[in-house]
């Protein structure tokens, strides 16, 4: 592999990793407060892409010429809001009534919700892949040996901005503090006057909003979307979350980037047909040898 090729793969890997990071954050936040894997999270990512698909042709004509950038922001914000709403709704209807039940019950429900969104999506949107409208013109920048597209740059910048915003919310705001408190010890937090229901709703909303953005960013660079796209990406993002240490926010971001880079390099090697199995192999490897991930702390199970 030449040096140029190496850096090209690295760039592609970083931009792929940024998506994984955005979705992984949702998994990790929900796991942090509820200790459960929200299987339906990858499908929120899919719905984000479809919201972008339906909103773009309806909203963008209102923002001609130089206002286009404003239009993009409006589309993205609206998608985030709708995805957040949906995430909160799913938690309220499907997960909240089961909170006191065994974890397996919630897990099965989450699988049910995930399937419902996938095949309900197939029913509503149609099963055939759709080509995403040109929200941002995804052209190559520069003319050197390396190719970076505008979409890649924008996706990366937005991801970094969102990460900074998220860190601020979690570290500096009252709700963020409540989130950390619930994650640490839910019973103690509720005794200190933290409203657990609000915190959980907020967490689901925040995670779903990030997945929604990821859906749009993904569609800008990959151009075709379909109702089952969330399955693969969801599992990969989950792997990223576990890689970084589930429940750990910076870990999810690092895990996402790492997975993106590893996957791109495998995709460029002679094992390219195994590309989709890499995430699984990595996931299994981590869970077996270091379940706490890179940044997590090992915990001893107590009776």
């Amino acid at each position, binding site marked *: 592999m030449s040096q140029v090729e190496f850096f090209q793969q690295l760039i592609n890997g970083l931009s792929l990793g940024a998506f994984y990071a955005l979705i992984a954050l949702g998994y990790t936040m929900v796991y942090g407060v509820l200790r*459960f*894997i929200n299987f339906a999270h990858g499908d929120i990512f899919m719905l984000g892409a479809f919201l972008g698909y339906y909103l773009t042709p309806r909203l963008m004509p209102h923002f001609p010429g130089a206002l286009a950038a404003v239009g993009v922001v409006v589309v993205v914000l609206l998608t985030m809001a709708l995805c957040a709403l949906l995430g909160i709704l799913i938690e309220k209807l*499907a997960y909240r*009534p*089961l909170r006191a*039940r*065994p*974890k*397996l*019950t*919630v*897990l*099965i*429900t989450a*699988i*049910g*919700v*995930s*399937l*419902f969104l*996938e*095949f*309900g999506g*197939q*029913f509503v949107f149609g099963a055939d892949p759709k080509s995403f409208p040109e929200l941002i013109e995804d052209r190559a920048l520069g003319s050197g040996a390396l190719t970076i597209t505008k979409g890649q740059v924008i996706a990366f910048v937005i991801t970094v901005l969102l990460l900074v915003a998220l860190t601020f919310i979690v570290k500096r705001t009252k709700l963020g503090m409540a989130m950390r408190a619930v994650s640490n010890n839910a019973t103690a937090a509720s005794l200190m006057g933290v409203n657990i229901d609000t915190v959980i709703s907020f967490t689901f909303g925040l995670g779903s909003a990030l997945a929604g953005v990821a859906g749009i960013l993904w569609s800008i660079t990959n151009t075709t979307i379909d109702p089952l796209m969330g*399955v693969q990406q969801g*599992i990969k993002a*989950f792997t990223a979350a576990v890689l970084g240490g589930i429940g750990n926010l910076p870990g999810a971001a690092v895990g996402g980037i790492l997975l993106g880079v590893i996957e791109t390099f495998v995709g460029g090697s002679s094992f390219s*047909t*195994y590309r*989709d*199995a890499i995430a*699984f*192999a990595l*996931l*299994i490897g981590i*869970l*077996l040898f270091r*379940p706490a991930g890179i940044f997590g702390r090992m915990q001893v199970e107590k*009776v």
Partner: protein
Amino acid sequence: MNYRHVKKFALLAAIILSAVVSHFSGGWNQYHLLIIITIGINIVLAVSLNLINGYTGQFSLGHAGFMAIGAYVSAYLSTEYGANFLRLFGGHAGALAIALLFLGVLILGGIAAAVAGLIVGVPSLRLKGDYLAIVTLGFGEIIRVIIQNTDAVGGARGYSGIANYTTLFWTFALAAVTIYVVVSLIDSTYGRGFLTVRDDEIAAEAVGINTTRYKVVAFVLGAFFAGIAGGLYAHINNSINPQGFDFQVSILIVTMVILGGMGSTPGVVLAAVVLTLLPEFLRWFAKSDLLDWLVRHAYQFLSPEHFAVAAAKTKELFESRMILFSILLIALMLLRPQGLFGALPRRKASR
């Protein structure tokens, strides 16, 4: 005649009944026969998964992977070496020779799946709950990707030209054997250990039960029968391809186990029957005059072009079994998490 003998007689009766019914099934509608055989295969899958998910309490999402191994190994053996084997019996291979061949490849397929179950089970059964579910799901998908990359069995194009050896007799006789083995195992002194592992692992450990061993035994045995089911599936469908064993198939089997009630074999058998027939019934309903009539009256206020779309979409809804299954899963968990027949693990209220 005590209970143990009743079980043996029931097994014998079921095998004889399968043989008798199979004998008269020659003239049946091929499509109906296929559905009936699918019911039998699903019973094998659901009852064997119930041993892992229900009785032992280890939530596995990778059953389709083991089914795939059984299907591919048995199909490969019967297609590549079947003719040589039958030649040993001279000019014309009788029914007995074919029976021997088929049973042989089914068992070899089952053994291959069991070995895979051992390889997957030993490391992953250290994990619990969500993590076990996602790791077994991962292994199932890895098995599928490996098959996709194996040219000897056709890779992604699939493997075809498989003889049609599966009959109603084989399917239901083996379903009866599966039920017999699982029920007898759970009823035995040794088998009580599976239930203890599910109900309270730490307590089980404390009274000297080797929980890891029990989990692995359940996993390997479950994988073996999934492999047998895969072999039956391959030899009725003429051709198989890796996409036929994806995540959705695992979910389907899991839904059967959950609907029937985790840890209830009669419930799971019933659920396998119901969930195989239900999509067929809905598909029939979608094409029926009754739905046509209902649609005509329900949507009469719509304009012609809207009517056409609404009518088509309504039909599509009835044909989509995955939407049905997902709603069923959610509704069951919210309203009756123990399933139709299952008993919830006995736990103190304080836990």
